[in-house]
């Protein structure tokens, strides 16, 4: 072959390459998905490397290890144990507390507006829920009977219970660590739920069917690392692990009832004085619906200011609030089975 090339090598090369044609190229969607996941890892590694370097440079390793050990105790001890002192400035703020308050943040009962330092444990009981807002606008909603820790502004450790993350316009990604796997978001809204295995009656069969871990993606995508494997879950997907070890992917629509608790945990939308457009966008986001906007509707929604002086609509579910508010604007909601929401002229109560 070498001898052959010496005659007219360049012409031969050109001919060979031309005849071979283009190499197969992975689709842009594949490239985008993989890139997002790899970039997340790269950024996380870069941050970790900088931290390690910083610790070496400052000789702060021992202090940080001590802090980490304290944090570990805080995460794993019952809430009666005094939590660690805040490690640094606040990273988030309590935006809502629902139900009788038994939520503890950094050793205190939570109150709306309270700031949260990194390393703070958040615990809710069977009657309480909360929403925490990060400084970049991302939201963490915490369901009942949950124990979690805000490790830092980008990392949440979930011990048990359920959390819902809405990364919103936040630019960085979040990491949720659990005993069953680590989840990284790729610009999304998702729920992570872990449940301790229930003992007692019901038999082995019932225990095997118990869900011990799930990740539900309402929109966007998350990357799940579990038992050495990396999986991806996208909009409308639930990754479910059962007590007997089975792993299933199930469908969960963005407007399914599964998400109802997340609205209950959030601050209420104050209807009085709000623009109809803002109200509709809130309802669609919380309800998981897609509004079929028309130019006419958009115009009307921007021009209309809602009045609810007695605050009847505050704290209602999105569907309930739509039913109550829209007739005052001569509109009524019409949902299809795919979660599309059309607004029709209101024709009175039939």
């Amino acid at each position, binding site marked *: 072959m070498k001898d052959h*090339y010496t005659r007219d090598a360049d012409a031969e090369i050109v001919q*060979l*390459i031309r005849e071979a044609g283009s190499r197969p190229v992975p689709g842009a969607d*594949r490239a985008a998905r*993989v890139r997002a996941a*790899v970039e997340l890892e790269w950024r996380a590694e870069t941050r970790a490397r900088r931290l390690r370097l910083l610790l070496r440079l400052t000789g702060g390793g021992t202090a940080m290890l001590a802090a980490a050990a304290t944090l570990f105790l805080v995460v794993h001890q019952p809430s009666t144990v005094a939590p660690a002192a805040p490690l640094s400035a606040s990273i988030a703020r309590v935006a809502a507390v629902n139900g009788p308050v038994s939520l503890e943040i950094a050793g205190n009962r939570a109150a709306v507006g309270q700031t949260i330092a990194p390393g703070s444990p958040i615990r809710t009981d069977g009657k309480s829920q909360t929403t925490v807002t990060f400084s970049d606008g991302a939201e963490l909603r915490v369901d009942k009977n949950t124990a979690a820790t805000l490790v830092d502004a980008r990392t949440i450790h979930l011990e048990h219970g359920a959390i819902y993350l809405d990364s919103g316009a936040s630019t960085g990604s979040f990491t949720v660590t659990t005993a069953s796997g680590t989840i990284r978001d790729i610009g999304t809204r998702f729920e992570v739920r872990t449940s301790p295995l229930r003992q007692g009656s019901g038999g082995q069969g019932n225990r095997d069917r118990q869900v011990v871990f799930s990740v539900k993606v309402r929109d966007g995508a998350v990357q799940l690392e579990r038992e050495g494997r*990396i999986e991806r879950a996208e909009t409308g997907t639930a990754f479910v692990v059962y007590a007997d070890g089975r792993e299933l992917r199930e469908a969960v629509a963005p407007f399914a009832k599964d998400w109802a608790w997340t609205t209950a945990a959030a601050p209420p939308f104050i209807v009085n004085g709000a623009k109809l457009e803002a109200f509709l966008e809130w309802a669609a986001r919380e309800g998981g619906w897609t509004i079929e906007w028309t130019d006419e509707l958009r115009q009307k929604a921007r021009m209309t200011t809602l009045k609810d002086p007695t605050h009847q609509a505050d704290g209602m579910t999105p569907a309930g609030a739509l039913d109550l508010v829209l007739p005052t604007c001569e509109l009524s909601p019409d949902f299809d089975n795919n979660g599309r929401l059309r607004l029709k002229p209101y024709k009175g109560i039939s």
Partner: protein
Amino acid sequence: MDDQTLARRALRGDDQAFSELFDLYFPRLFRFALRRVADEDAAEDIVQATLVKAMRSLASWRGEASLFTWLCTICRREVHDYWQRVGRHPEVAPIDDAPEVRAALEALSAGGDSPERVLERAEVSSAVQLVLDHLPGRYGDVLEWKYVLGLSVAEIAERLHTSTKAAESTLTRARLAFREGYSSL
């Protein structure tokens, strides 16, 4: 940007270096995986896992082998794990998994000397594309842009963010590297 510079800058958190690294190696790794699993979705998952693991251990890459060779080593393990998970085995071994061919291609990636000719029966087009994938840097892309897509040197220069003269020089070196690589198979 050579492999060493690319890795060093990516480790420092340089966005441009990450982009270049991804753009340079993702398509090649995808083809590498696809040849082994013949399923685009599986190949995507394998390459994602490969690159995620590579990002975690990039600091451990010492540069003895080319970056692509190192990535292929990780990718091979991911492919192996994939076949274990699905409980089957590949029916056909890809030609670049033959030890002699692998040695030749790795030498090629590293810009090393030509190994003995080992691939007489391979289909020419596949062999050409394999060689293009294993050429150092952007040589494979440059040759494909010029001779398959018919881009002018000026257009190639634009894609490489360099001058026309530098692009011409790259093209010459790419042809030489290809000739050497192809004749080594």
